[in-house]
């Protein structure tokens, strides 16, 4: 028998994270602002905004024309990533092997823990409890991913909806097309054809749908019929290596950010938990002066622990930061398993002096404390104000 696949859903997760520092906005028409440089489409919206006719994915201009009092909330992708990681870890702590789909949506199988908790329903109740009521999570379960997602979408906060195999078709039939990952024009096109529910779409011949709507339409048609059966692959546990640097005042110039990034990279490379393993995926995030944040994740083409290669992969991302930075964070999202390293036949010049210097610094740290060793990083050597020319950055040896 195919295992039960569960989906846990937190609608508007990124908006909820952004509103945590401004909870009073949760009761007024508010929406997650588009990220700088992206298409001006709204993110998730509050219930009050929805009541005023504003929907997620709406064009910014249209939304402001519909509801002039709409408040735009700056996205906090770094905060969302952190909170989402917390949610996933709580689920993992409860015994679920999770496969995150996007922030706010995660799928997992219940088979491994059904006996532990006493059945599918009890396992879902446990999953909802482990995430906590503050996030208003909902759960759904079925034998296919899309069915589980659809079930979670219709569930109320804190509720779990389970769809048995034979009920799948009747369950999906009356649900709206908005559950499908389609572009706005496609919905309009389908509505124009009189197709308003998943059941109506599923009843059409697959070939005709593909001919009219292309590959995207074919995929939607397949989902409307329940989608493919695919097992869940639990993620590998995330690495917990993070280095952060807070600035005494907000920094906007690229040179300073590059130097701070270099210092963070040195510290991350020096972390003993890495045990010589190269980085596979790194995350660079910044807390911005207005209260928002920025985050980019880079998967390296080849896992590496070489400073120069990591710098050239992540360094260019720094110019994308939209406003002055209060804190810069570098995170090892995933490490490679192997630690192998080709030894050099002849040691590079200066290696011995470097080793002695490092040993000396280790001794200083051991005798005077962890924060005794710092590196001077020039940040604005041209400044007429002496104390803004350089920073002392804590350094691991």
């Amino acid at each position, binding site marked *: 028998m195919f295992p039960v696949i569960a989906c846990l859903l937190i609608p508007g997760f990124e908006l909820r994270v952004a509103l945590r520092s401004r909870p009073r906005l949760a009761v007024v028409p508010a929406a997650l602002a588009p990220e700088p440089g992206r298409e001006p489409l709204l993110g998730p919206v509050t219930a009050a905004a929805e009541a005023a006719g504003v929907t997620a994915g709406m064009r910014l201009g249209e939304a402001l024309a519909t509801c002039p009092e709409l408040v735009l909330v700056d996205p906090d992708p770094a905060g969302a990533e952190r909170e989402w990681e917390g949610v996933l870890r709580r689920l993992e702590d409860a015994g679920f092997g999770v496969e995150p789909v996007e922030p706010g949506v995660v799928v997992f199988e219940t088979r491994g823990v059904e006996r532990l908790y006493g059945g599918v329903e009890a396992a879902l109740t446990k999953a909802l409890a482990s995430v906590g009521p503050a996030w208003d999570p909902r759960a759904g379960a079925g034998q296919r991913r899309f069915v589980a997602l659809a079930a979670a979408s219709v569930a109320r906060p804190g509720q779990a909806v389970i769809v048995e195999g034979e009920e799948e078709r009747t369950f999906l039939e009356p649900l709206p097309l908005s559950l499908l990952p389609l572009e706005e024009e496609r919905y309009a096109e389908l509505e124009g054809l009189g197709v308003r529910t998943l059941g109506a779409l599923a009843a059409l011949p697959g070939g005709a749908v593909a001919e009219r709507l292309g590959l995207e339409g074919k995929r939607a048609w397949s989902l409307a019929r329940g989608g493919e059966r695919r097992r869940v692959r639990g993620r590998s546990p995330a690495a917990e290596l993070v*280095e*952060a*640097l*807070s*600035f*005494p005042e907000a920094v906007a110039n690229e040179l300073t950010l590059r130097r*701070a990034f270099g210092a963070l990279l040195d510290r991350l490379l020096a972390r003993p938990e890495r045990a010589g393993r190269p980085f596979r995926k790194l995350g660079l995030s910044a807390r911005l002066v207005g209260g928002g944040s920025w985050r980019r994740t880079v998967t390296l083409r080849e896992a590496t622990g070489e400073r120069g290669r990591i710098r050239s992969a992540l360094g260019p991302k720094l110019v994308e930061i939209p406003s002055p930075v209060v804190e810069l964070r570098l995170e090892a999202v995933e490490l490679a398993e192997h630690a192998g390293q080709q030894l050099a036949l002849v040691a590079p010049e200066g290696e011995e002096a470097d080793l002695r210097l490092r040993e000396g610094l280790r001794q200083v740290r051991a005798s005077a404390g*962890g*924060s*005794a*060793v*710092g590196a*001077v*990083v020039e940040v604005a050597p041209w400044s*007429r*104000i*002496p*104390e*803004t*020319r*350089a*920073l*002392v*950055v*804590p350094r691991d040896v």
Partner: protein
Amino acid sequence: MVSARGTAARLNAPRPALVETNVGGEPRLVNRELVTVVREEWRVVDRWWTEEPVDRRYFEVVLESGRNVCVYRDGERACWFTQRA
């Protein structure tokens, strides 16, 4: 010098100084030590467009002991500091 782990600290931050001046506003005593020569004087006016404007009158002086010291009068806060310029 280095603050809490993970926080960058400023290098060469100014330190409060006890300065007595003559009628022209030049330092006569720095931290209770007599000034023998004022070697140089300059002004730094910057960031006037921010909420933390900088208005400093710097003096590089030689003290009675032979030490070279830089002091400045902060025009915004009306007090004196020493700093390596």
